[in-house]
């Protein structure tokens, strides 16, 4: 076999193993009993990306080919990309198979998310990655910074400097400048078939409004998850939110409206997915990304229900709106810059006390019984914050379980034991607390 054939064979085997893993996860999701048909759109997105390997099916821009711009993290403005006439695809990835290939470029103890991204980028084959000829990466954490350098071997990489001392004046200045620079680069790069590629205030205004609709729906699903009657499993919610990475914002929002209507109905009718006494868990820390549904999967297998995901792949990704009051470019760009930097509580910022306020608020609003702090191997910055989160929880009294893992499915048994013990602990606490309340 010559090298072309070996490469081809390798690509096929790789894609097949990725598809197999994704298919197994989707199968588990689709076979959840009494699951709403409104979930189908989101599962289909994942199917198209990972199994069918046909992103254009969900992008449905058949009459007009749009350019795909790959982005990482949650600080790159999608509104700018949509306004330029392109489509943003978030490439933060959760595939174990890809992370094994990525180990050629990423240190063994490095972040598995970055390994997975490098794996997909270096071993081409997954179209969602291949179709992005430009990738925009912010300088958030160590791993992302070096990812930019390594990825430039395979793709055109635009690095965007995210200042880390959030409260300083110079930080805001630098970030706004970076936004204008990104705007200029997008205008130059994206050529639509009918001339005009400038990002105008009108186009930006439309893009902002589309995103705002999605944000409004996210807030709705969050309110639904706050209810003590749980009508959606954490792993379902995670898949729904992750599908936003790939789906066009308008389609996703429409599907979300249907899902939210369905879920609200279920609350009215009392069709819950689990007992009200099931311990409500908040997952905080490093992001879990489809198909890595390991952590919420284990939690829910052991009898808990994940009510919120504090990571950057969860609701936090879509929560904050762009708050411009005027529809001129200056105000819009300013507001976009603010929205993507100021409320972001990624631990790559220092100091990051806003995150502690957010966790406190989440714990109170979602009636959380315990926190599962997920640290990906090598994710030092999230690990740094564990003790601070524990301190904050001392006031409200919720226990915290720190779990360190990567994408490898081999440690599932050990995780199960810990999570099961944690959930037992929470159940006992819940029972004791309920029994000590006086009967009035």
């Amino acid at each position, binding site marked *: 076999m010559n090298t072309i054939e070996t490469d081809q064979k390798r690509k096929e085997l790789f894609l097949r193993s990725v598809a197999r893993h994704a298919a197994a996860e989707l199968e588990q999701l689709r076979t959840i009993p009494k699951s709403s048909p409104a979930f189908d759109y989101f599962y289909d997105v994942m199917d198209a990306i990972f199994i069918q390997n046909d992103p254009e099916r969900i992008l449905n821009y058949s009459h007009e080919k749009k350019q795909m711009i790959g982005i990482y993290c949650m600080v790159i403005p999608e509104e700018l990309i949509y306004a330029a006439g392109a489509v943003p695809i978030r490439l933060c990835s959760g595939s174990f198979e890809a992370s094994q290939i990525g180990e050629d470029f990423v240190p063994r103890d490095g972040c598995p998310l970055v390994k997975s991204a490098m794996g997909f980028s270096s071993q081409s084959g997954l179209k969602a990655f291949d179709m992005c000829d430009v990738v925009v990466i912010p300088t958030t954490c160590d791993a992302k910074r070096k990812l930019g350098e390594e990825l430039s071997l395979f793709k055109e990489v635009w690095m965007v400097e995210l200042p880390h001392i959030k409260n300083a004046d110079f930080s805001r200045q630098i970030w706004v400048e970076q936004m204008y620079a990104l705007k200029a680069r997008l205008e130059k790069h994206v050529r639509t078939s009918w001339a005009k590629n400038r990002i105008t205030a009108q186009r930006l205004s439309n893009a902002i409004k589309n995103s705002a609709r999605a944000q409004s729906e996210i807030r709705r699903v969050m309110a639904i998850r706050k209810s003590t009657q749980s009508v959606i499993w954490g792993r379902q919610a995670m898949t729904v939110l992750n599908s936003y990475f790939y789906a066009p914002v308008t389609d996703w929002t429409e599907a979300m409206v249907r899902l939210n209507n369905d879920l609200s109905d279920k609350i009215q009718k009392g069709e819950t997915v689990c007992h009200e006494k099931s311990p409500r868990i908040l997952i905080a820390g490093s992001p879990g990304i489809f198909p890595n549904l390991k952590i919420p999967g284990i939690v829910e297998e052991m009898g808990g229900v994940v009510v919120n995901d504090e990571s950057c792949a969860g609701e936090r990704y879509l929560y904050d709106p762009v708050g411009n009051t005027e529809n001129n470019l200056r105000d819009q760009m300013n507001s976009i810059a603010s929205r993507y930097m100021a409320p972001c509580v990624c631990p790559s910022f220092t100091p990051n006390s806003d995150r502690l*306020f957010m966790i406190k608020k989440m714990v109170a609003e979602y009636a959380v019984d315990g926190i599962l702090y997920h640290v990906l191997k090598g994710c030092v910055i999230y690990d740094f914050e564990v003790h601070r989160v524990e301190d904050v929880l001392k006031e409200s009294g919720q226990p915290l379980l720190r779990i360190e893992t990567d994408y490898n499915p081999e440690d599932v048994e050990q995780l199960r034991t810990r999570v099961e013990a944690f959930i037992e602990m929470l159940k006992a606490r819940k029972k004791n607390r309920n029994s000590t309340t006086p009967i009035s």
Partner: protein
Amino acid sequence: MTISKLRWSILISSFFVLLFGAYLGLYFGYVLPTFSCCYVSSRAGTCFLLTLQQTIGAFTWESIVVFLERFTYFSLLVIIMGRGWCGWICPLGFFQDLLDLTRYKLGIGSIRFSKKLRNGLLWIKWVFLSVVLIVPLWVAFPFFCPCVALNLEIPYCQLCPGKYILPLLVGNPDRVAVNFKNNTNLVMSTLGLTFSAALIWGAFIKRRFWCLFCPMGLIISWYRKISFFKLRKNDLQCTSCEICYNTCPMEIEEVYKSRGREDVTFGECNLCLKCVENCPEKSALEAVYLGKTIYRSSSINFFKKRGIKSSVDTCKMVEVPLQIQIKGQKQS
């Protein structure tokens, strides 16, 4: 009715009441904490800065008694509204807002000042304040250059843009001229016209430009701890999204940055409530009168304003102690 529309209505009504009120027989005295200029003959009341200059400039026992009496009324008025006088009633403020609206309708963006620049301009309002309080002492006791001092009469009013702009707005262009009566008046009126031009141009490109330099605002801001109208923040709801800072005409950062304090009525704030109106989190910011919340921020209204119907507000009000000690962080 949105809070913006309400504020515009009150600003328009105040403009007409204050500057044309005499035709209706209204008379509020010489105690107003706002620019109801003495050079407008149809005014319903007069700016307190005039009282300050006249009583200090005379410096007799009678004038001190007059001062104390008027100061009491002035203080009461300030305590009732706080810097709401600036945001909701001041005719010069209204004029600046009109200029800002014109800019917006023309599709031009506004400029913003960095914190460094704003801090660097703080001294100007203290200079104006000293012209109000200290220069009249020179007029009262002209130990040197008595010719200049005696010609100063009411020194601040010669410099104040109100003297030139407000009569113009009611249809009297006579004040818009350099006063050649003597050298002092020449200099003062030239300066005054310059400041007026600066106000017009400044307010066109930067929101509420004059308020950065206003000595009346400075005096009113001293009352902020005791006035009835306040701005309150609920720490747990705030996501530090910076939207309040972006909409604030006075560019106050501390509202979103501060943690651990409930009262966020800062000295610069003229209580226009744009921050509360645009805050996307339920009850993160509230306008409070005598301790009672009269207007609060809301997620539903945020999205509704932008044309999106949001069906449910996303939080239950959480009662938590606001003194949250985060290890190692200094409280602002």
